[in-house]
């Protein structure tokens, strides 16, 4: 049965420009169900562009290529439809939205996803129980709920908030864009525990990261190195360690 299911994510020969400049240059990648993939690469290699294109952020021109998500044409979907179909982007720079409470956003997001799955809106008590449980996991205080989305949050709080949203929404494909950047080691462990708690045979995760450090705590099934807009090398978790030892020049040189 499982073998007949399409891959979670299948990217074929994706070419993307931003303001006329080609950033993704024939990228292909497939992520299987239940797998965690890490995408590493030097600055400017196109990692964040990939994450944003998958989530549907405007401002990117797709020249060619196909992206299928659970067999659906992902690029044909609006950002909100992708989210409701179970795709989650953890933002590299989570946006501050003064005037919108965290709890409002969480509830509205959860209900949008439930509605898309034909489920009734979440009961208020159930919802708070769920959120509080996930907040404990992320070491977040109760007062957080009544604060405005990311407003005045420290860098670490913003990243934890992204993971909290992921835990509440339970996406099938999470794309975490440099969620580890700017975190101290304690915060990194908390974030990693959050990500690990979501691992299941039905859920996949793409970790976009510059450093190997996160991968000590979230062990990936596959590691890809992105160089100048395409995958230059793929391997298992040992590739990340080798990269750490030899630096990006090692792959960059090979890809040139």
């Amino acid at each position: 049965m499982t073998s007949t299911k399409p891959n979670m994510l299948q990217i074929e020969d994706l070419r993307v420009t931003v303001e006329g400049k080609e950033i993704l240059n024939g990228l292909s990648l497939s992520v299987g169900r239940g797998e965690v993939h890490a995408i590493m690469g030097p600055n400017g290699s196109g990692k964040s562009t990939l994450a944003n294109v998958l989530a549907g952020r405007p401002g990117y021109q797709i020249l060619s290529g196909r992206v299928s998500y659970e067999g659906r044409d992902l690029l044909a979907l609006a950002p909100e439809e992708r989210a409701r179909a179970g795709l989650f982007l953890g933002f590299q720079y989570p946006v501050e939205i003064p005037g919108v409470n965290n709890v409002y956003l969480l509830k509205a997001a959860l209900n949008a996803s439930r509605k898309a799955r034909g489920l009734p809106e979440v009961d208020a008590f159930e919802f708070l129980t769920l959120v509080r449980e996930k907040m404990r996991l992320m070491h977040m205080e109760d007062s957080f709920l009544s604060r405005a989305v990311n407003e005045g949050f420290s860098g670490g709080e913003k990243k934890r908030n992204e993971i909290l949203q992921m835990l509440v929404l339970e996406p099938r494909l999470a794309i975490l864009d440099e969620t580890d950047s700017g975190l101290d080691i304690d915060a990194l462990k908390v974030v990693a525990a959050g990500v690990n708690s979501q691992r299941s045979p039905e859920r996949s995760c793409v970790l976009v990261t510059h450093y190997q450090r996160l991968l000590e705590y979230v062990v990936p099934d596959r590691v890809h190195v992105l160089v100048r807009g395409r995958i230059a090398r793929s391997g298992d978790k040992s590739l990340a360690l080798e990269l750490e030892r030899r630096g990006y020049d090692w792959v960059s040189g090979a890809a040139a």
Partner: protein
Amino acid sequence: MSAALTARIAEDFAAAQALAPAPAEGRRRAAFEVLHAAGLPSTRDENWKYANLRALERLRFVPAAAAAPQGLSLPAPLEGFSRYVFVDGRFAPEFSAAAVDSFASLAAGPQALSASPLAGARGTDERFALLNEAFATDGARVHLAAGVPAQRLEVIFVACADGARGTSYPRLEVSLGAHTQLELIERHLSAAGAASTVDSVAVIELARGARLTHYRLQGLSGSTIAFDTLQATLAEDTVYRLHGVSTGAAAARSTQILRLTGARAHLSMALAALGDRQQVQDTFALVEHRAPHTRTEQLFRGIAAGRARVACNGKIVVAPTAAGTDSQQSLRGLLAGTDAEIDVRPQLEIYTDDVRCSHGATAGKLDDNMLFYLLARGLDRDTALRLLKWAFLADAFAKIELPELRRQIEASLAEVLKDAALKELL
């Protein structure tokens, strides 16, 4: 102002006097004389260029005749607040609580009318207040004598008459004795379907140490033409918290003149205005710091959708006598329609060195990053846009300390933003 308009005001004034020789004849006539000589402002006047004054051409200045309101639905009463209702500027005891010492209708007793709080020279900005003074036949007088305990009052002005039959002149005079405290809700509503002309005035005088929290909610019908003037004088150590929400009327102009005349007077004003369709919401606020160590926080949030125009001209003047002034101004407008217009205009005139004045003014569209963040969490575009509009306004009423009133305001804003889903979230 055109000679024709001046002549018509004179005619209407004579007609009104003949119809009902009202009390306070001297005061009315004095106001009329000034108005007659000086005229009403026009859009050529600097502070009036965003207002919609075209309606003046067909305005009938005589006070609308007394009538029983049809289809009147009043908001749910708030606990602890005594309610007084005026219909077309006239006291309507049948809808009101029993009169108390602190409240009187102006028409009811000569003692309330002997004083003339508007006496003195007035500039162009206060001419609509003169118009009200010349024509109003009744009004609410709230007076707290020194030593009286804190009070809560709600005054509702209902516009009922059609503008073709005359103008509705709501009038509210508030004077707070030394160290007294008042929470005051002032509402302006329309009877169902009424297309009225309204020229309202609120005059506020705070004696030393008095504290007033004043909620002004303008929710007149979409076919009403509304002019409003608020004049407040703050003596030393007073605290005046003003919350204004303006969502109604086809064209609304609110002129607010606030004078901080006593040392350490503190004014905090938070105004929200929403315009849709072809509405005009025009606010002019002049704050004068005349005494040392006075403080102002002024915040305006306006949203213009459809083809609406929402304007806020906030002028702060710090006199040479006002050393140590602290003034913060934040005016922000949001364009929510491609044919909408936002005009925010901060003005600062400082005539002394020792001051702290900050000001910020922005006019723009919703932030694309915020929108994408919400979409990426699965919210549909309409909900996301409304949520962001809501968030934009939230500053303006975040500090309302009466939870029940805040809920009412939020619900009415959600109504204006056509948002049932948001109501559920609140």
